[in-house]
């Protein structure tokens, strides 16, 4: 379980806190999506979960963040990393080797996994991300999307209890983004892994996440089931979060009394709801 209590953080070089008074509880095995406008503090929130804040980016840290019982402020980054697997926003920086297989090996070797487990872990992680055929490829020859999948697979190989991903589909086309989210959701279900994803694509998050967290100005504005959060599409738009058009349309219809059903998260749900209304 991830438990954030009254968390406030100010980077050393900043004059004001980036996040302030954050309270959030993420149960084990949950798939949580965090979104918000640029500079709202969503990345800092994930840095607090994987220990990068305050261990790598020092500053004023108030409150507490515990992950799997470890206080991220007290525990070393290495100890936190045994529980939390992190995929960074800048994939080129995360990749440290030149061949996919070596990239997979890097974390496994560092954490000292038994050599007889390594082969199985690499094979499973590559298969889980659907890139088993890339195993011997030179990373420089891969597309941005393939690199992103390699970066995620290299973390999945460690089989962490918590997976924190910062914009994992930033370089992916819509079809690949959907595929990655599908793979992550399936992986989380099968392994009971807690997944926390920072992502701008709210349509994707609402489709796969159990909980949607909306951050604005360093504070959590909404933290609930996607359908419950998307019901506030007008408020979300005001803080720079653009809901799917189908959701906004149905919410407006609901506001005018023309529709009284549940919130629609995508075009398919809206079509079904509209056909019921019309017919």
């Amino acid at each position: 379980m991830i438990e954030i209590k009254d968390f406030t953080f100010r980077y050393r070089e900043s004059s004001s806190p980036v996040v302030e008074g954050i309270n959030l509880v993420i149960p084990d095995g949950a798939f949580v999506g965090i979104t918000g406008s640029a500079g709202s503090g969503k990345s800092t929130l994930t840095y607090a979960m994987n220990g990068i804040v305050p261990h790598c980016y020092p500053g004023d840290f108030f409150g507490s963040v515990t992950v799997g019982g470890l206080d991220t402020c007290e525990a070393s980054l290495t100890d936190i990393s045994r529980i939390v697997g992190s995929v960074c926003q800048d994939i080129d920086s995360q990749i440290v080797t030149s061949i996919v297989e070596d990239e997979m090996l890097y974390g496994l070797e560092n954490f000292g996994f038994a050599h007889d487990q390594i082969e199985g872990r690499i094979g499973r992680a590559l298969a889980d991300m659907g890139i088993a055929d890339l195993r011997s490829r030179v990373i420089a020859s891969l597309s941005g999307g393939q690199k992103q999948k390699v970066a995620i697979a290299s973390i999945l190989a460690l089989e962490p209890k918590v997976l924190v991903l910062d914009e994992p589909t930033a370089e992916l086309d819509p079809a690949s983004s959907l595929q990655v989210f599908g793979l992550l959701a399936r992986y989380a279900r099968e392994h009971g892994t807690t997944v926390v994803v920072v992502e701008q694509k709210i349509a994707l998050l609402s489709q796969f996440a159990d909980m949607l967290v909306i951050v604005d100005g360093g504070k959590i504005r909404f933290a609930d089931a996607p359908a419950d959060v998307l019901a506030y599409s007008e408020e979300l738009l005001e803080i720079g979060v653009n809901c799917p058009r189908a959701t906004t349309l149905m919410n407006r219809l609901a506001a005018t009394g023309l529709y009284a059903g549940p919130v629609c998260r995508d075009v398919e749900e809206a079509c079904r709801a509209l056909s019921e209304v019309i017919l």
Partner: protein
Amino acid sequence: MNGFLEYVPGDSLLHRLNPVAKLLFAIVFAITCFCTGNLVFLCCMFALGIAMAASCGMMKQVLGLMKAVFVFSLILAILLVFTTPQGEMLVELPWGYIGTGSLLAAATTIVRLEAAAIPLFLTFYVTKISDLSNSVVKVLHVPYKYAFTFASTVHFIPVFMNDMKGIMEAQTARGIEFDVGGIVNKVRLMVPLCVPLLVSSVRKTNSAAIAAEVRGFNLRTRESGYKQYPFSGADFVVLALAVGLLAAAICLTVLL
């Protein structure tokens, strides 16, 4: 498309050799080139380097390298021509003369630098950088932190070169003409671009350090490496060849 110093997959003998053997051979080969001034011997070393490149299909990469080294060595050669008055006088200068010995010294410098550079650079093209760093940790007992620092430096060279290319392309799109006015103008236009490159490099290096740390970098020991790097007969032959070449160079220097 592989970039500068990026591993090129293959199955040649050079690809299959132990990374440590390749590295030691390249270092001893380079030392050998500096142990003798015999132009014929250096030409043989140069030919051997070319043959090695051809054997693993790296001629294109080596030709690119030779071009870069030639530019650098030419500067040294020109300095030598004007400052080494040796042999039969060909051109008289106010401070001395250019002689046959001057030209020989210049040619020797060019061939020496070209020959010394080829195996060193070839090592990176035929060896995965992770194998190189892991093997020096396992076999030579080099501390992992140093090996990783070196490997990361080599790994990031093409990344930063790509960044620079991107920055230059962005400036070209804004109307900056890098190709007009020769090398001096190009350098003049590139200098201000070093600032954004530096900022991006520092940011990337910081992110890479964090990414390595959250993947257990600090836990790494010599025993952590999954792959083993045993020496085969071919590795010993290659090392013996390197020692033989070094001995030959020393003998030539002492005897002639």
